């Protein structure tokens, strides 16, 4: 017998730590990955902030478990926007420091990881901000289209249009010859 997410939400509403823990266990991965995908400065810290805010304000959430993911991702989205603003302000006055390699990675692994990250960033940069957000929520956050609509506060039709147009743009860019920028984009099969 196992506790479902629905039961977890019920327990959490009663202030039961088992409920909080089960909800965190289910969603912390997607939220952390989403924070990474939005280039949050401290994705783990941001994930903690998201769940603290969610649990502290759980009494304000009146929906059921089907809406809960979208609600938590809404908080995550707001946090990533705040994070981006903070970074932008800081970059105005402080030079960006070079990210240090993780000591656990070998030099080769580090190069591969860096290239992969660069490739992902470059690929996603093709998209508009809204298109990128929708596609990342879909493939990184594993949200459904209605959940994405709830998260970014747009009608379902608008979300579908953003997704469709974003994918069209991605496809157009990666299949175009030559590339508009005059350089070939890296991508893996």
């Amino acid at each position, binding site marked *: *017998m*196992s*506790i*479902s997410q629905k039961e*977890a939400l019920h327990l959490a509403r009663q*202030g039961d*730590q*088992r409920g*909080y*823990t*089960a909800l*965190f*266990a*289910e969603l*912390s*991965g997607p*939220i*952390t*990955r989403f924070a*990474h995908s939005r280039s949050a400065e401290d*994705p783990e810290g941001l*994930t*903690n902030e998201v*769940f*603290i805010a969610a*649990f*502290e*304000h759980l*009494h*304000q959430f009146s929906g059921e478990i089907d809406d809960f993911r979208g609600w938590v991702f809404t908080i995550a989205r*707001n946090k990533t926007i*705040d994070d981006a*603003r903070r970074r932008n302000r800081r970059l105005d006055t402080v030079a960006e420091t070079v990210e240090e390699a993780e000591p656990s990675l070998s030099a080769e692994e580090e190069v591969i990881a860096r290239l992969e*990250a660069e*490739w*992902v960033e470059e*690929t*996603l940069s093709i998209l508009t*901000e*809204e298109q990128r957000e929708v596609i990342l929520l879909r*493939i*990184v956050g594993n949200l459904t289209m209605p959940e994405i609509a709830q998260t970014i*506060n*747009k*009608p*379902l*039709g*608008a979300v*579908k*249009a*953003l*997704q*469709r147009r974003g*994918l*069209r743009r991605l*496809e157009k860019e*990666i*299949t175009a010859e030559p590339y508009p920028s005059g350089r070939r984009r890296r*991508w893996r*099969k």
Partner: protein
Amino acid sequence: MSKPLNDDEVEKILQGKATSRPLGAILESIRSHFASIDPAEPNDELQRFVSVELLHASDTKDKKMLPALLNFAGTVVGKVLLTTTVAAASVGGAHATGIVEVPVIPEVATAVASVVADTAINIVEVIDVVVPVDIIADPEPVVAEPVVAEPATPEPVVPTTVTPEPVVTTTSTTTTEAPVPRFVLVAQTFDVLEVGTVTVEGNTDIGLTILATTFAQGWDVEVEQADLPGEASVSFRSGGDRVDFDALIVDDQLRVSVRDRRTDTRGDQFFDADGNPVDGNPVVDPTPIPASQTFDVLEVGTVTIGRGDDAQLAVLETTSTTGWAVSTDQAEEPGEVSVTFRNDDARVDFKASVEDGQLRIRVRDRRTDTRNEEFFDLQPVGTPNQATIDLDDSDDVDQDDDDTDVDQDDDDTDVDQDDDDQDSPDADEDQDDDGQDSPDADEVSPLIVLRSMNVFDAGSVTFSTVVNGDSLSRIAVTSVAGTNGWSAEILSGNMKVRFENGDNRIDFEAIFNNGEVTINIRHRGTDQELDYQVQIVDGQLQIEAIS
């Protein structure tokens, strides 16, 4: 080049199903890049809510075990010592090998086994669990024989036999009461001068969220990247004109700032959590003063009045015919404007004021000592210009432009802006699932709403939508106009329009799908593509650009 993506293809690609398109490989690479990132660990603050012990218990190859373990922890008696790698395939297997010793009655052992039955886990935890009274009725101590002897001499695990009281959890589970934010704003809609409305909600901890926007005819709205965390920023644009709306929770009050860049004026207004003004000069205008409106004053000249720098009614411009001099006078009453035309001894007075939501215009010709007074209806601020007409039966909706009996003359148009009509609680009940009108639509009071939108510089499209409560049930293009050398043609079905200018072409298409309307405009010459979402928000037809 591949054929254009359709929605089915998109779904297949996003679900990772094999397709011949390279896009699938791209998305899969992005997905796998992020999938390698581990979830965050709860920090000290979050551990007020989340139990690291319980979380680690689930930190296995199969995270689905956590709920099972949690559930178990909530129902089993005594202390359970699990100090080894468990690879139990079944309840019997687990017990028979002595891998798991549960010093309680067999039902509980079953519960434990159900936790570990599916996969291998590695748990080194002592979990205090709940003690149901009925389970400990016959407490026969059972000595555990852990396989791994760490701690070196584990104390025999014995059910807590002397616990007649009702069961209380003794795990690290705690009950936490979430603090209530100091300031909680439930959805509030603010009129932003005459250009639109913004609906926001939020609280001190999460900040503000923009729920909806509307914009007046000729204006576009855009949600801006805010300067401050938790701030809501919206800009309204019309050509080179711009009005900014910013809202932020400051010191447990909502501060709304509106900056009218046309006049470079700005003001702040504070509101409490119920949306009531606290103090400051109101910038969210309570009176529907038009941007500008020009009146002929007999034969002597014209007066243009409208919103002044202080957001109050003001004289914006005057003209006079030959021989007449014009002056703007100090108004006798607050909120009133006064203009005098003089020609030697002849004099004509013009006064204007807003009273009871109407514009009151008085003209006095002192040559004949005659007076004239007229009242003009004003559009509520932020209400897009739209003409609506009640329908007796939705099946009678006439989409033929020539015959549609919609009078857009301000004086006569039956503009129905009563929210009650549009938000009828019966509306949803009277609507079929497919979004089409039900036979008893009489009670729903469906409305036709006409809107026009410009299509690049090629012209404009006017379309009619049928509104049932909060949803749209039909849309059709009713008229088009080409400009700047562009021709415009409504195509069959009244959902598409083609603009052409030599070899240039622009396609306009309205798409109705399950009660949602989107508009796609594609400029074939520049390869630009614009999407818009048409929807009913707070009883208003809103057209929002999808970037």
